């Protein structure tokens, strides 16, 4: 028992001193489980997140926009791959995590359960959704778990490209026709509150936060990050000439921050519980791809097994 207490003390001290935990290091079971849950959820979000924008890939109204969106989809699949690989360093495997996703045992970001209804949604997702994701993710580059932190460095760089591209699309559209401006405003109206909800429930109602902070997995509270996002976004909205749909939005000189209204948490709860506009559709698409691809993966395994067997028998006969 003393040995257990010692390794625990060593782990706590290392984490408190901002040292990185690596896969072979001892770690508390709850720390491992928290990371698996969080990294898997993050990986699933990248993969499911390809769907709402992927909805516009075939219809992108210029070839340049099509190329940009396709490159983004490719990046997201790549992010999913790094993140699943980071999760695998904790002793789980990608196939198992994918099963859990399609069975509904693991979650992904609820933001992707909202529909993309016009091409302006592509820009607004880049600006607001990727922007909120970056606010959440930049601190993860200093997360105590090494493989996750390193994956996040690369992911954050690419996310920042995506955000710029989204914002640039919106600038082009708001400088365009009345119909384009109306599309942008409509998309902002639909995505603003769901984006604020990406930071999670208010601090008072966030059960796991404190422990994750002590473990240096999380560094800022949900409400801090939400405030930071609002403060950054308001001037950008003014620059674009769009209105954020919150009548309570007002500059608070005393705090040096923007005051803003309360999101509709009960609607978010519905989405989290699986009753969002697109929950069923997103999982169904992922399941169809996964199950529809089973014969391909089986064939690849069978082929690899045949080659391995040949090689083994070749070695025996030549040896």
């Amino acid at each position, binding site marked *: 028992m003393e040995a257990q207490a010692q390794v625990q003390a060593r782990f706590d001290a290392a984490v408190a001193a901002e040292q990185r935990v690596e896969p072979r290091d001892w770690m508390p079971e709850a720390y491992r489980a928290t990371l698996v849950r969080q990294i898997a959820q993050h990986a699933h979000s990248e993969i499911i997140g390809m*769907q709402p924008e*992927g909805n*516009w890939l*075939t*219809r*992108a*109204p*210029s*070839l*340049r*926009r*099509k*190329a*940009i969106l*396709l*490159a983004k*989809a*490719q990046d997201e*699949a*790549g992010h*999913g*791959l790094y993140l*699943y690989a980071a999760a695998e360093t904790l002793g789980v495997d990608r196939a198992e995590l994918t099963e859990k996703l399609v069975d509904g045992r693991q979650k992904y970001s609820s933001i992707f359960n909202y529909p993309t209804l016009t*091409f302006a949604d592509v820009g607004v997702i880049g600006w607001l959704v990727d*922007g909120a994701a970056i606010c959440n993710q930049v601190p993860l580059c200093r997360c105590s778990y090494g493989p996750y932190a390193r994956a996040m460095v690369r992911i954050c*760089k690419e996310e*920042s*490209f995506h*955000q*710029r*591209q989204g*914002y*640039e699309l919106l*600038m082009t*559209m708001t*400088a*365009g*026709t009345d*119909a*384009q401006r109306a599309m942008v405003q409509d998309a902002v109206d639909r995505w603003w509150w769901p984006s604020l909800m990406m930071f999670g429930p208010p601090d008072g109602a966030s059960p796991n936060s404190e422990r994750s902070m002590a473990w240096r997995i999380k560094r800022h509270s949900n409400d801090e990050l939400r405030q930071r996002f609002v403060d*950054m976004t308001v*001037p*950008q909205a003014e*620059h674009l000439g769009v209105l954020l749909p919150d009548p309570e939005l007002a500059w608070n000189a005393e705090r040096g921050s923007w005051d803003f209204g309360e999101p509709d948490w009960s609607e978010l709860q519905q989405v989290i519980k699986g009753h969002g506009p697109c929950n069923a559709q997103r999982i169904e*698409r*992922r399941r*169809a*791809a996964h199950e*529809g*691809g*089973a*014969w*391909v*993966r*089986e*064939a*690849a395994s*069978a*082929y690899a097994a*045949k080659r391995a067997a040949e090689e083994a028998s070749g070695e025996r006969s030549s040896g």
Partner: protein
Amino acid sequence: MSDDHVYLSLTEAGPGPEGEARWAYGTGFADPLLGVDAAAPKGIDPADLAAYCLMLGDDVLVLSQRLIQWITRAPELEEEVALANLGLDLLGQARRLLTRAGQLDGSGRGEDELAYWREESAYRNVRLVELENGDFAQCVVRLLLFATAREELYRRLVGHADPVLSAVAALGVKELAYHREYASSWAVRLGDGTEESHRRMRAALDALWPWLEELFTPHEVELRLGVDPLQLREPVLASLEQVLAEATLPVPDLPGRAYVNGRAGRHGVHTEAMGPLLAELQVVARAHPGATW
């Protein structure tokens, strides 16, 4: 530019078409042929060259649209990445070739006017690339057939007098070699994988092989330009036979698909799959004439 801080960089970047905010990662070129001499090389009819660029450009634009339809539907995440990558290569080629066609034909049309505002009968792609996706075996077989033929063609166009064709070909040879290798490696794994995958590969070959002949059938423009695709036939078939042998798949013995009154894709006579493909591709652009995106 504060690259490590996206918010700062966004507010620093200037708006407007020339502002730094137009910057986009890798795929962002706004003018695919910046600085290229707009005239056709001496001794080449610009109208013929434009028509040829359009044929080759439409092939890769339409195939890229089909590959894009795979995104979020691929059998494995690595395949999502690979198919997107292939689609991006083809789309990049299409943008340069379409822009060149618009430069040469005297119409002043840009890549987007050509892609979004032409009717089906003005599209000049071969029919193989427009057929509906089918299963992953069909994806692999179509890629294998197309990439093998296109790599062979680009190899011959590398030294072409037209600077755009030769540049597209020089880069395209490398890109298509990767596409062919990707498709070949899957053809072998699926052909020599399980009974199920072997059966699907045979079905895919039977479905797609008859459309291959059109890639070797010369159009009068190709003959006038001295780029007869019939010359590709022998090396392409030899290469395909080698891959299929390794994949334990028989080479189909099937006739090519007939033309319609002597006309097919290169003349703007397509299959029933083409209309819905273009409707989807063009719908947003056509709903907003004159808009910039």
